[in-house]
């Protein structure tokens, strides 16, 4: 199956989506921009929302990396499901552990 013409491979396969260079550069610019925002936002006090803001921005950045750098936007459903599942089960671990800890304080019944 050694092909002399580049870019072609076995029958039955699809050409992989190639993300244009410009998109990569734009996304990189956006990531740097968001990093600056994160640092600046940390200087402002949003009260209880500090963590939400920091985490929100981080998640936008993560989303960009996943979608473009990691090609998830053009990938098949299964790989998205896989990542989604891992995050979901992480939340399960967090949710039940914290559930115990915040409802534990009272020595008497918490119900």
């Amino acid at each position, binding site marked *: 199956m050694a092909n002399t013409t580049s870019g072609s491979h076995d029958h039955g396969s699809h050409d992989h989506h190639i993300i244009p260079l410009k998109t990569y550069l734009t996304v990189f610019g956006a990531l740097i921009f968001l990093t600056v925002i994160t640092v600046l936002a940390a200087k402002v006090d949003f009260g*209880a929302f500090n963590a939400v803001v920091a985490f929100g921005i981080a998640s936008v950045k993560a989303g960009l990396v996943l979608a473009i750098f990691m090609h998830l936007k053009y990938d098949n459903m299964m790989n998205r499901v896989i990542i989604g599942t891992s995050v979901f089960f992480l939340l399960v671990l967090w949710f039940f552990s914290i559930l115990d800890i915040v409802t534990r*304080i*009272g*020595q*008497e*019944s918490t*119900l």
Partner: protein
Amino acid sequence: MKLMPRLNTGLSALMALAMVVVATTMATSSAFASAFMPPAVTATAGEVDKIYAFLLITSFISFVMLIGGMFYFVYKYQRRSANDKTAYISHNYTLEFLWSFIPFMIFMFVFVWGWKVYHDMRNVPAGALEIHVMAKKWDWRFIYKSGKEATSGVDDKGQKTPATMVVPVGRPVKLIMASEKINEASTDRSDRPVLHSFYLPAARIKQDIVPGRYTTQWFNIEKPGDYWVFCTEFCGGGHSAMKAIVKAVPEAEFESWLASEGGGSLSLVEQGRNLYAGKACIGCHSADGSAVVGPTFKGVFGKSRSFVSGKTATANEDYLRDSILNPNANVVTGYPAGVMPAYAGQLSDDEVNAIIEFIKTLK
């Protein structure tokens, strides 16, 4: 292969026999639920035994239906010839629904019932007699409000006699439990306090004892007698030797026992008052409601506290203990952080208990 037919009959008979044995023991034991359980000496224990009996009976019925069915089919549909034809039955939605839904309903029923009984198990009735339980590798100590302490001893033959907690019959008893080091002075890591668990089978109660905080449970024994206490959280070589006895006696007898030898020492509250002065708490905390450097102790117990961090908590024993040992974890609103010294390592567990008992009296 000649063996086969005989073996088949033999094996079916064997499994059927095993089933009859299992089934009869299950059936008899559900009839006399207490036959498999230690005598039940509290009302809660009676409730637990009822759930247990219910579970035994339902399990017994499910088991007979399922495994009885299995035997019947195995017997009825044995392979007759090398090319038997069988029915092609792929599913039956009605049946499938039934055998999902009925177990589900049973499970929900026992869940709710279990929850209800558990709720009673965890809710201490008002006016319970409070006893401090101190667990260490591998022994128990029980300390009463009067300052009386019950510990293990050694009999004439040099055998260890377990620590005995004397309690009055018919009165709720609340245990406030903590884990302590083998000896206060030791800095050896392996002497650290570890998990233990206070298990009183006759009352069907059990609660782990977690280093660094208090855990509680309660019981109300209705029948005089001696009942075993086991440690049920693995704590090392002496785990199985970590036993104690709860001795339930009539109220009058209890009072006279409490007043007898050992009763002369200071009560916990008095010890606490002395520490309050002796450990300089008095410098920053008043007992009469006035605010000094720190908040007053008057009325603090049971109150809701709010902290600089925005969190809130109810001031129970656990909270007080934390506030004494590690005061900066939660700083009370309106008071400076980092002023109160951390008393971790400065006060023994007994001393902390005593101070808390003292604070609790400042209503």
